[in-house]
């Protein structure tokens, strides 16, 4: 298979530029790989995220598929060299479709002892370690809890260790560029990047350009960082440290124009798209919280669209302002994570009662309570479905990947305006912060979001319903349609207050039925693997990649296993019940104690088996694969 032609444009609408390969390759052996998992790790001040991002950009340009996962320390700027100050960035890229950032790295780039200490346990047996030996000295070793220097005490003999004086080499390389010692030391991440580019056969030119852009107006820094980059590349090429370098063939990716996107960014773009597609103002009322804040940050930078962002005094004000905006005829949006979600539940009840289109995004994190804010978890599903007093039904969606976030954002507002209802959209910290390539869609391919406000005063009744059981949306400012809504129970037609027994029963049932109607819109479920057989693996949210890989492996190994991944968690798609019956057993891998499992058991009386992991870490493909093979025999 030949690598597909790729083009790179750094800005929207930029000119086509053919791939470049100006460096002559060193004369070492080249090994072809199907895929590789690399983890960069270092102190939070080491610029690890930057290196990771740049490396992934480079990989993307080559038409490779990839997936990344940053791991931030939970401290803002932890003391240098400590274990809790370690920052990590993992990337998997491949000539096949990449669905996760990989279970265990093949290569660990460790910029200091703490980074080695924390990440070694994940490294594949026999994996490669590239360690910055200059950082492996007294204080740093002690802070990481090493009694002896692991680079020299033979304790790493099970791995392929490359101890390189990255610090020293960088300092020498940047000599003469006019930067301070401190600045010089900050360049070592580019040394590491240069080395990795060499090792994985990636060209350097784009990085040079990127450095030039990044340090615009600071010519010494440009010079120093480029020098470090080139020194790293040259080190690989000339030092004869490495006898092998690696090449991964480009993937057979769907043709099109691509960019890299995190889940949070994708949500932001999706919401802007919903605004443009509906012609309505998007109003975001939000209170910052990890790992959801980036959606607010991104949308705050897009006010040249019909977008208004409002940093509220708390989460309650966030959702309430969105309800007010929806009452005004805008797309009401609020974004948060677990603790904030708890606070919004009373107001979501009001949105249910007033039947206003508001989307509530919960980028889940590890709980309960403050929990482990920077860690992944999927434990807010039952809260989304059942977590409000009263019979208070709300459609619930979940995104499965960063790219899927874009579609889910539009889908959430499609449902909200069609059915006049709040909608909860679940993402998680894994998806939110991970990047993957995203094929930029044609505008024409996006779904329609038709909205028509009622303007005709003839025979108007505030709670009269259309065929979707939705009441009419009336913008204040429309003459003759003045009316009042609120949280008290309403007459099913006029919307006047009503405490009538049968009216209440009717309204409770209608609100439930309306949410139930959402199922009518859903496309048939797509099943990966066997369409029937021994085992159906049912997943939702960010476990998609790991499950899909595991099922693919199991299927290839001959197991009669299928995989369905649910985007709609409430209501369930109509065809799910039948699908469940087509298999002998049902397995539900979740990053919680079995929440979807409970919903499936209750709804379908199926003895679904949970596969629970609640460690603040994503599933490894192998964990799911093993369970599948146990069950599918």
């Amino acid at each position, binding site marked *: 298979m030949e690598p597909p032609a790729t083009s790179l444009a750094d800005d929207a*609408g930029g000119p086509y530029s053919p791939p470049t390969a100006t460096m002559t390759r060193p004369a070492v052996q080249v090994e072809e790989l199907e895929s590789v998992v690399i983890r960069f790790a270092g102190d939070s001040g080491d610029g690890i995220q930057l290196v990771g991002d740049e490396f992934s950009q480079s990989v993307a340009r080559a038409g490779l598929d990839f997936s990344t996962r940053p791991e931030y320390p939970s401290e803002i700027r932890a003391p240098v060299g400590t274990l809790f100050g370690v920052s990590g960035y993992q990337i998997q890229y491949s000539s096949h479709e990449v669905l996760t950032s990989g279970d265990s790295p093949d290569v660990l780039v460790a910029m200091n002892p703490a980074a080695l200490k924390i990440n070694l346990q994940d490294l594949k047996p026999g994996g490669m370690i590239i360690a910055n030996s200059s950082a492996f000295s007294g204080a740093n070793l002690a802070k990481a809890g090493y009694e002896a220097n692991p680079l020299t005490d033979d304790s790493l003999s099970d791995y392929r260790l490359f101890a390189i004086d990255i610090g020293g080499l960088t300092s020498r390389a940047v000599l003469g560029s006019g930067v301070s010692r401190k600045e010089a030391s900050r360049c070592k991440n580019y040394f590491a990047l240069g080395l990795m580019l060499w090792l994985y056969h990636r060209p350097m030119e784009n990085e040079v350009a990127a450095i030039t852009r990044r340090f615009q107006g600071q010519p010494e820094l440009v010079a120093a960082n480029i020098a470090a980059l080139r020194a790293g590349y040259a080190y690989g090429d000339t030092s004869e440290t490495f006898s092998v370098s690696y090449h991964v063939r480009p993937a057979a990716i769907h043709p099109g*124009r691509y960019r890299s996107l995190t889940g949070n960014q994708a949500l932001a773009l999706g919401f802007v798209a919903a605004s443009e597609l509906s012609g309505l103002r998007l109003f975001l009322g939000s209170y910052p919280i990890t790992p959801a804040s980036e959606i607010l940050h991104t949308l705050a930078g897009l006010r040249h669209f019909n977008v208004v962002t409002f940093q509220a005094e*708390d989460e309650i004000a966030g959702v309430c*302002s969105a309800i*007010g*905006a929806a009452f005004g005829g805008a797309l*009401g949006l609020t974004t948060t994570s677990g603790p904030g979600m708890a606070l919004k539940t*009373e107001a979501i009840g009001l949105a249910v009662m007033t039947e206003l289109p508001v989307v509530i995004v919960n980028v889940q994190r590890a709980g309960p309570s403050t929990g482990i804010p920077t860690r992944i978890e999927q434990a807010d599903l039952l809260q989304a479905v059942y977590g409000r007093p009263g019979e208070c039904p709300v459609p619930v969606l979940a995104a499965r990947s960063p790219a899927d976030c874009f579609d889910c954002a539009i889908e959430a507002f499609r449902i909200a305006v069609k059915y006049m209802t709040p909608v909860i959209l679940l993402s998680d910290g894994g998806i939110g912060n991970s990047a993957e390539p995203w094929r930029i869609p044609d505008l024409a391919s996006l779904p329609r979001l038709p909205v028509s406000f009622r303007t005709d005063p003839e025979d108007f009744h505030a709670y009269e319903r259309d065929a979707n059981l939705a009441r009419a949306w009336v913008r204040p*400012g429309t003459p003759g349609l003045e009316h009042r809504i609120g949280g008290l129970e309403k007459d099913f037609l006029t919307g006047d207050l009503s405490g009538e027994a049968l009216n209440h029963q009717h309204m409770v049932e209608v609100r439930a039925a309306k949410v139930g109607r959402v199922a009518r819109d859903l496309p048939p479920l797509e099943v990966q693997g066997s369409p029937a057989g021994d085992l159906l693996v049912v997943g939702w949210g960010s476990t998609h990649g790991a499950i899909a890989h595991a099922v693919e492996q199991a299927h290839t190994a001959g197991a009669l296993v299928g995989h369905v991944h649910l985007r709609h968690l409430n209501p369930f798609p109509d065809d799910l019940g039948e699908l469940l019956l087509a298999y002998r057993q049902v397995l539900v891998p979740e990053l919680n104690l079995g929440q979807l499992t409970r919903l499936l058991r209750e709804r379908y009386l199926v003895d679904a088996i949970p596969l629970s992991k609640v460690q603040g870490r994503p599933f490894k493909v192998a964990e799911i694969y093993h369970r599948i093979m146990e069950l599918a025999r």
Partner: protein
Amino acid sequence: MSHSLEPGRPLTRRDFETGQDVRWCPGCGDYAILSQVQKLLPTLGIPRENFAIVSGIGCSSRFPYYVETYGMHSIHGRAPAIATGLKLARPELSVWVITGDGDALAIGGNHFVHLMRRNVDLKLLLLNNQIYGLTKGQFSPTSEFGKRTKTTPLGSIDRPFNPVALALAAGATFVARSVDAEQEHLAGVLRQAALHKGTAFVEIYQNCVTFNDGAFDLLTDRDTRDDARLLLEHGRPLLFGKGLTKGIRFREAKAEIVILGEGGVTEADCAVHDASEGSAGRAFLISQLGQLGFPVPLGVFRAVEAPTYDALSEELSRAARERSGTGNLEQLLASGTTWTIS
């Protein structure tokens, strides 16, 4: 159902009445306030459909049901936040918040102070009966120390808020106080609030006949009111008492009562009320008078011009469009580093 409007006909009070039965206790002070609002709205030159009234929960918060405009009877304490979203989404609407002392200052206290700070162009009427009416008589954050209520059979140990002082400290640009029974005064204050650009906060003392009857009698009874209250008028000296024979002056920054004519004191010695003063300092001093055994000030404490939050928000959007051009979705989706696989 909505009273129908012929185009062109000037609005009247009746246009702002709904068919709904008004469900307050007979004699409740809320009636008088409703009536003043219904009289005021048609005179503002704003089409009826451009009004929106948002309330929380409480007796007072039933208000929107009785005014023929767009309205939302929301949840307890959150009306300022809902109204803020509405106004930011639709700056052209005239948005009013109706709230109670519990709604605005107990559960809703945070939204209240943040609204004042931001200066969103909303009118907020706080119907302060110094009690929780709807839940049948517990003390509120404005109830007096020592009050015996259902939850304080031995007397309350909570010291009350002074809502005017709190609003001033939070940065409110318009702060006023009136009382249900003084229809003319109330009408005047409400009109000024309506005309203010920015958050206009009006505390209205409201008699709850059922659970706190007579709380404001001192201020409204013919026999006592002249000495008990101080009517603030912009540009006029601070005078009170029957025949306006007493005055307030500030020595350094301490208030004193002076008797006109005594010891050669004249009107000119009294402090002149300046609601438009840049600093909120003096308005705050005046707001403290009631607490100190001085007469309780009624009227407009403060009315200063400042950019409104909603206007600033629109201005941000304009600036963003100026900088980046009107947003183009296609460009946005394809922004950043992109690459093409063919």
